[in-house]
């Protein structure tokens, strides 16, 4: 990590160049990326400052520092706790379902036959569909009057199911869309992981006639663990920040049934013009994601080092 170190090997063999220029080079090359970082950091710091202010766009003369006031208000605010609860429920449900389903599919497609590869490529398509558009697709399919899914469940005798427009089934419906879009993500990462596992332990287990369930729980799962952790953390970080699917489907409704963090913050800002409260909500979300992403980055770096062959 020394600042003076430049070319990793053979540095002395390189043709005589003025040394200071070589030392500056990495900084010059990464300067543009640095500028982008700075440009993003400014609004980030601004948001932190806003979160400590009473700041409403429609009442500019009331603006002023109130310290942790916005945060303290949350403690006794049922709307905040609703947001917190809905976000956590949504995150846990989507990640658990996607992990189980994604792992199952990856195991089914494990052998690299042409058919299995074709299936895994087809499953990429939902993942490459814009989540906001995916929500619109499911909205058309779950329309109570003509939606194909409403028709299908009516064949099973369920006639009064209102999908996203009923508070009791709204969460189920958006979770379904999330599962449709993002399960392939987990599947693809785990499939790559499964196929990169060494063969010897499995061959040895097969020779010894070890039962399949034992192989799965004692060999496959432990060896796959780093991939499972990385994939779930990836999803966890995205899922707790879900905005597109929920906003496109119900805008957080019906009522406040799907009021997750970012949707709530968006409405605080644009509907109630309460910048301070919106920023405080987002800071809390950022704190949660920051803790998660630190765990994530550690895991991910380890996997990455292994994939690039210098573990």
């Amino acid at each position, binding site marked *: 990590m020394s600042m003076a*170190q430049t*070319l*990793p*090997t053979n540095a002395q063999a*390189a*043709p005589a160049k003025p040394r200071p220029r070589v030392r500056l*080079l*990495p*900084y010059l*090359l*990464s300067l*543009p*990326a640095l500028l982008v*970082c700075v440009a993003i950091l*400014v*609004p*980030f710091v*601004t*948001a932190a400052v806003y979160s400590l202010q009473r700041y409403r766009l429609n009442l500019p003369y009331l603006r002023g520092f109130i310290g942790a006031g916005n945060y303290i208000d949350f403690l006794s605010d049922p709307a905040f706790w609703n947001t917190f609860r809905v976000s956590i429920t949504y995150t846990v449900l989507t990640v658990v379902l996607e992990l189980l389903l994604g792992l199952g599919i990856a195991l089914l497609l*494990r052998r690299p036959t042409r058919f299995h590869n074709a*299936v895994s*490529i087809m499953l*990429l*398509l939902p993942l490459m*569909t*814009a989540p*906001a*558009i995916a929500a*619109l697709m499911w*909205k*058309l*399919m779950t*329309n109570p009057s*003509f939606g*194909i899914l409403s*028709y299908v469940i009516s064949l099973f005798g369920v006639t009064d199911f209102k999908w996203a427009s009923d508070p009791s089934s709204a969460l189920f419906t958006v979770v379904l869309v999330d599962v449709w879009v993002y*399960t392939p993500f987990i599947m693809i*990462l785990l*499939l*790559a992981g499964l196929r*990169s596992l060494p063969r010897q332990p499995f061959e040895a287990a097969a020779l010894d006639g070890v039962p399949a369930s034992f192989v799965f729980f004692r060999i496959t799962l432990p060896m796959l663990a780093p*991939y499972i952790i990385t994939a779930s953390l990836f999803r966890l*970080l995205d899922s707790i*920040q879900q*905005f*597109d699917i929920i*906003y496109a489907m119900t805008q957080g409704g019906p009522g406040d049934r799907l009021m997750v963090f*970012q949707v709530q913050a*968006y409405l605080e800002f644009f509907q109630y013009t309460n910048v301070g409260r*919106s*920023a405080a909500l*987002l800071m809390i979300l950022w704190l949660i*994601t*920051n803790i*998660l992403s630190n765990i*994530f980055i550690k895991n*991910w770096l380890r996997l*990455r080092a292994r*994939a*690039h062959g210098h573990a």
Partner: protein
Amino acid sequence: MEHSSLAGRIFRGIALTLILIFFMFPIVWIFLMSFQNNDQILRIPPRILFEPTLANYEALISGQLRTAAGNLQISFMRNLFNSVVLSSAAVLLALLLGVPAAYAFARFKFRLGETIAFTLLSFRFAPPLLVLLPLSLYYQELGLNDTYFGIVWVYQLIALPLILWIVRGYFEDISPDIEHAYRLAGHSWREAFTRIAVPLAGPGIAAAGLLSFIFCWNNFVFALILASADKQPVTVGALAFVTASGIQYGQIAAAIVLSVTPTLLLALYAQRYLVEGLSLGAVKG
């Protein structure tokens, strides 16, 4: 697994069929719907066989939508054009900024480099609204609100980390000895970079570019906040379109098909690289 029983094979067959139906059906169904008129869509029970019509696409392309309340002018084609412009410009800018930086991070060990690389990576996971909401206030003051440049700049949040980390992995996999040999022959580092390193990392750069194009195209929240109607990409445009066109379901389906077709085709074309790209190079496919 190699010698599974008949029952096992039947189970796997059924499971794979159900999985394919669940994940493929929505795309197929919306595609079929986009060729139906409203009477055909509203028919119960729905039919798989119908007389296809191109009326929905014609209405979208001409911008004249027939609704219950009369003709409505909506330029969905404008949204499509915006998506192309915004995503292409964002990826080009990210490649210009990101590839040299990725090279620097791969070849030189310097503290600032790691800091930048990790800052960008952590932005990938920060709530986008945290940056966007204050930014929208700044943009209003700077006059960047609702400009292509302003939106392309924010799209760097999506494209730059992706390009930086994927391309860095590719540069790290190329032995520096080749470049050293080339430089011993009297070439400058710039020549070594443009003639040796970049061509060798070419597939990685192309994959990172394609993936970031897809992610920029699919982004919704950035333009929702920063763009007005005539700068909006398809993701935001389609939502506005649903509100405006009301019950013209065939036209909505056609708008959805037009919005997703480019990314789905790109994804099929680049599927080889998607695994690596999606995990930012943590899993080599």
